[in-house]
């Protein structure tokens, strides 16, 4: 049920379909609009652990709404609160051990995010901020990826190959114990996921690509069906080369995760 207090999003797909917020976000926005403005601001600025803290999707809506209503004081206060929230998250999502100029990258991401609000305020015909009212974390992650991707790729070739990595190993990786991709439960799984992510990010680009395509996304290495996308096709190499890369990558990941080293 759409609240009459909450206007629909304006962004429309190329196919003419209007973007819609999830129902829980719509309800949270409607509830936030019922609050006293001072309480609303306090909840937007609340500690991360606070249960009454407003979802980022809701805060984005309130910021845009305040601007459109000419309430610049509220707009500035809410935008400041959201920027502090995102800035804090960037402290650990853009890590100094991976990016020597991490602080510069964090600032670039946050400034681009803030500038998105300026573009929106000036009347962005693409309504790009609409997506931040649907799935904020994913939208912000994409923005972060845009900035970090080029930096990561520029640096990845500098990562030295660990000792023992053989370019001539023709073992079929499908026969290797899938230890690094086992599925431990809950918290342990999350922590293992973070370690695995770091280890994958430290791989050379060609090995990283085959690991992600084959083991995480589940693309086949090759296929008899010419219309089917495969790892070999995406990487522009033979299936044998894909298997070699996969073997090397799995061996490195197993070593890294077994020793508990964080690359």
């Amino acid at each position, binding site marked *: 049920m759409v609240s009459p207090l909450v206007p629909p999003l304006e962004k429309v797909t190329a196919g003419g379909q209007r973007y819609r917020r999830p129902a829980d976000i719509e309800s949270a926005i409607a509830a936030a609009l019922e609050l006293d403005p001072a309480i609303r601001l306090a909840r937007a600025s609340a500690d991360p652990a606070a249960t009454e803290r407003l979802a980022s999707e809701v805060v984005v809506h309130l910021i845009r709404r305040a601007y459109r209503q000419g309430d610049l004081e509220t707009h500035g206060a809410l*935008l400041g609160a959201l920027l502090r929230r995102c800035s*804090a998250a960037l402290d650990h999502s853009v890590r100094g051990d991976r990016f020597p100029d991490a602080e510069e990258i964090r*600032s670039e991401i946050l400034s681009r995010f803030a500038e*998105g609000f300026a573009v929106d305020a000036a009347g962005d015909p693409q309504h790009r901020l609409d997506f931040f009212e649907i799935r904020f974390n994913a939208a912000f992650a994409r923005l972060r990826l845009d900035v970090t991707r080029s930096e990561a790729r520029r640096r990845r070739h500098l990562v030295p190959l660990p000792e023992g990595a053989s370019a001539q190993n023709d073992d079929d990786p499908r026969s290797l114990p899938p230890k690094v991709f086992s599925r431990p439960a809950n918290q342990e799984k999350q922590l293992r996921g973070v370690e695995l992510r770091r280890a994958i990010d430290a791989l050379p680009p060609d090995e990283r690509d085959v690991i992600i*395509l084959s083991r*995480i*996304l589940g693309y086949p290495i090759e296929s008899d069906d010419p219309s089917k996308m495969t790892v070999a096709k995406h990487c522009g190499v033979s299936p044998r080369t894909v298997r070699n890369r996969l073997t090397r990558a799995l061996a490195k990941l197993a070593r890294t995760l077994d020793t508990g080293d964080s690359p």
Partner: protein
Amino acid sequence: MSTDDPTLQDALDALTLAGPHLDAEAVEAVVRRFPEHARRIREEAMDLAVLALGGKASMAPTTPSAAAETRAETALAAFHRRLDALTEGPKDRRPPLRASR
């Protein structure tokens, strides 16, 4: 915000909505809708898939550091500069550009 090409933006939005745990089938479904952006969609999917590995642990909010506060102030200044550039003047001297909705 991440691209100026509207159809690419649509494609990346569709990909994001297909997550957070993407697989080849979901990615290729988006590629079939936006074949002109096939390579970019797959590359984005690869990055999103790795990002999702850490789950909530990798997105956990933290208390702002001193550096985070400074960064937020810098970003707020960037907002004002950009808005001034787009609207040719400080905002507080003009009415809002867009009507309330």
